[in-house]
C-alpha cells in the first residue's frame, strides 16, 4: 500500500500491538489526539486507555515509568513529543535505560523503544529541530535507529520494538510526509545494526541517515552528471554502528564523506571519520569530509536554510574531494 512514513509508523505500531499485548504506548497527546504528528492516530480507540496512555507533561516520568513497566515484563513504546524535549529524561535514559542490564548482570533488562520526531528542515520554533543523535550514541547500552523512508520505517520500527535492547527510534520530521512509498501490509523486520548501501558508486562513499538520504541522493544524481559515481550508505542504526559496511565501501571508493544535520563538532561524523581513519587509512585518496550543520543553534525559520545541509553543499564537498 502506498503510504507516508508517519502512516507506516502508525501501521507498524498497530500491528505490533496486535501481535504482542505487552506493548504499551505512552506519552504526551498520544491518546485521544493521536499524537501531534498523528503517529498514534486511532490506537487509543483500538487498544484503549490502558495501552495508549496520555501522560502528564513530564518527560522524566514518561521514561522512568516505561522502565518500571519493563520490570514487570511489558515492552513500552514511549513517545517524546520532539527530540528537543528529551533532555528532561536524560538522567533516566543515561543512568538507567542504558545500564540496567549491566548493573544487574542481566536480571533486569529494558526492552523499550523511545520514539521521537527529530531533525530540522520544517521551519519550526526553537527546540523543534534538534538532531542530537550523537549524545545517545556515546552511551554504551543504547541502540539508535533512524529510518529514511516509509518502507524502512516499518521494518526498522518493528525490529526495534522486538529488540531486547533499549532503542532510541528517531523519526525525521522532514520525511514524515515527504513521500509516499509502497509498503507491504504484512509485518516485516529490517535488521538492526546493519547499514544499507542505497546507491552504488565507485568514486566516493557518502555516509548519511534520515533526512540526509534524499539530500545525498540528489547530490549523487548531480554528481553523476559530472561523471562522479557516489556510493550512499544509509546507516539506519547509528549505534552500535555497522563499521564494516562503511570501511568496505571506503576501501573500494577511496573517498569518504559524512553528511549529517547535527553540528559538526562531536557529531556522529567525527566517529565515522575516526573509524575510517583507523581502519582504511591507506585506502584514502583524501580526507574524510564532513558536510554538516554549523556549530550553532539551529536558526529560526527565516534563516534555517543557512543551517541545513542541502544537495548543493554536498555537491560542493564532492567536487573538493574529487579535486584533492
Amino acid at each position, binding site marked *: 500500500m502506498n503510504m507516508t512514513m508517519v502512516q507506516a509508523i502508525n501501521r507498524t505500531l498497530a500491528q505490533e500491538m496486535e501481535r504482542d499485548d505487552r506493548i504499551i504506548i505512552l506519552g504526551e497527546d498520544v491518546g485521544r489526539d493521536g499524537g501531534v504528528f498523528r503517529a498514534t492516530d486511532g490506537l487509543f480507540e483500538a487498544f484503549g486507555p490502558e495501552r495508549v496512555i496520555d501522560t502528564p507533561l513530564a518527560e522524566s516520568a514518561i521514561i522512568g515509568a516505561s522502565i518500571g513497566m519493563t520490570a514487570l515484563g511489558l515492552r513500552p513504546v514511549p513517545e517524546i513529543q520532539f527530540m528537543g524535549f528529551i533532555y528532561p529524561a536524560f538522567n533516566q535514559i543515561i543512568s538507567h535505560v542504558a545500564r540496567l542490564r549491566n548493573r544487574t548482570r542481566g536480571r533486569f533488562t529494558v526492552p523499550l523503544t523511545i520514539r521521537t520526531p527529530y531533525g530540522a528542515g520544517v521551519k519550526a520554533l526553537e527546540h523543534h529541530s534538534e538532531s542530537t543523535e550523537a549524545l545517545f550514541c556515546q552511551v554504551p547500552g543504547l541502540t539508535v535507529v533512524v529510518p529514511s523512508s516509509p518502507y524502512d520505517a516499518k521494518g526498522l520500527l518493528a525490529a526495534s520494538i522486538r529488540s531486547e535492547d533499549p532503542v532510541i527510534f528517531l523519526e525525521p520530521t522532514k520525511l514524515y510526509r515527504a513521500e509516499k512509498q509502497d509498503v507491504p501490509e504484512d509485518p516485516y523486520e529490517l535488521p538492526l545494526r546493519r547499514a544499507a548501501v542505497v546507491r552504488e558508486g565507485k568514486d566516493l562513499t557518502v555516509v548519511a541517515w534520515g533526512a540526509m538520504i534524499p539530500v545525498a541522493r540528489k547530490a549523487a544524481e548531480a554528481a553523476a552528471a559530472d561523471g562522479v559515481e557516489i556510493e550512499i550508505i544509509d546507516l539506519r542504526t547509528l549505534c552500535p554502528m555497522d563499521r564494516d559496511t562503511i570501511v568496505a565501501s571506503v576501501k573500494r571508493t577511496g573517498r569518504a564523506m559524512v553528511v549529517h544535520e547535527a553540528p559538526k563538532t562531536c557529531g556522529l561524523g567525527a566517529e565515522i571519520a575516526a573509524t575510517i581513519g583507523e581502519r582504511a587509512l591507506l585506502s584514502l585518496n583524501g580526507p574524510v569530509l564532513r558536510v554538516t550543520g*554549523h556549530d550553532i543553534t539551529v536558526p529560526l525559520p527565516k534563516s534555517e536554510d543557512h543551517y541545513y545541509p542541502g544537495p548543493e553543499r554536498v555537491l560542493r564537498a564532492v567536487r573538493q574531494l574529487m579535486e584533492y
Partner: protein
Amino acid sequence: MIERFDPLKGERLQILDEKGSARAGLDPGLSDPELRAMYERMVLTRTVDAKALKLQRQGRFGTYASNLGHEACQVGLASAMTKGDWLFPYFRDLGLYLTLGYPLADHYHFWMGNEAGLRTPDSLNIYPVAIPVGSQIPQSVGAGLAARYRKLPIAVVATFGDGATSEGDFHEGLNMAGVFRTPNVFFCVNNQFAISVPRAKQTAAATIAQKAAAYGFPGVQVDGNDILAVHAAAREALDNARNGKGPTLIEAYTYRMGDHTTSDDSGRYRTKEEVREWERRDPLLRLRLHLEKKGLWDAKLEKELQDRSTELVEKAVAEAEARPPATVEDLFAYTYAEMPPDLAAQLEDHKAFLGEAAR
C-alpha cells in the same frame, strides 16, 4: 486577601461576576482611567492575536500559539507589576508583553521566525519566551535570589500553564523558592488543557493552587476571566514578594478558547459546546459590562478603540515585515562572546558557498 481563599477548601477568588458586577469588599479600587486602560490593553491583545492567526494562514508567520481568552490573566497580572519587576514568561503571554511595553513589531518579528525579535529592549526586564515547558520556573527563582542579594525591592514573576505543573522544574523551582523565601510570584494560567490533555488528567489535585502546600507558602485560585480578581491577587502577591514575605502561587482558572497552536485541531479532543460555554465567560465581555455599568464605556468608544488597535497592529506588521532578514553573521556571532576560530572558519566557508551559489 489571598489567605482568605483556601484552595484546599475549594475556594476561588472572583470579584466580577459574569454580568460585570463587582463583589463589594473585594474590589481593588482601580481608578476609572486604570480600568479603561486595562480594557484597551485587552482589546489590543486580542487584535494582535487575531492578526497573527491571519498572518500564519497566509504563510507570513510560523507556527503560532493563540492567546484567545487569556487577556484578563495577562493584563491583570502585568498591570500589577511595577518597573523593576522581572518577568520569566512562557510562550503564551502576549498580553503581558504588550502591557509591559515590549515593542509589538519585535514580538511579531520573533513569531515570523527571526531571533532578533527576542532581543528584549535593554529597558525591559523580560526574559525570552521559554519553550521547554516549565524550564523558566527555576530560572525565575534564581532571579529572585539575585534580587534579594542585591537588595532590590522588586518581585520576579514566572508564568506557565497547567501542563507545566507536572514537570520536575515546576517542583524544584517552587520548592527552592519556599526554602529561601524568595520574592517570587508563580502565576499558573490554568486554561484546562495542555495541548489535548485535560486538566483532570494532568494532576489528581483538585486545584493547582493547593500544590503550594507542598512548598510552605500560600497558593490561591482566582477566576482567570475576571481581571479584577487577577489584578487584586497579583498585586497582593507582588507586594508580599517585594516586602520579604516570600513567594505565592496563583492559579488563574481560565480556558484556552483557541487551538493549542496553529498546528493543532482541538476538535479532536473537545466539544464545540464546551468552547461555547466558555465564550459566555469571555474576559473582555466581562470587563466591558463592568465599564458600561460604571458609565465608562459605550459603543462609540468601542468603535474608536477597535480602529486604533487595528491601526497599531497594521503598522507593527508593516514594520516587522520591512525589517531586513538576519545576516549570516547574525547566525554565528552570538554563540560565544568571541567567535572561536573554527566557527569563524565555518562562517567564512559558508559565505564562500553562498558566493559560489550566487554565481
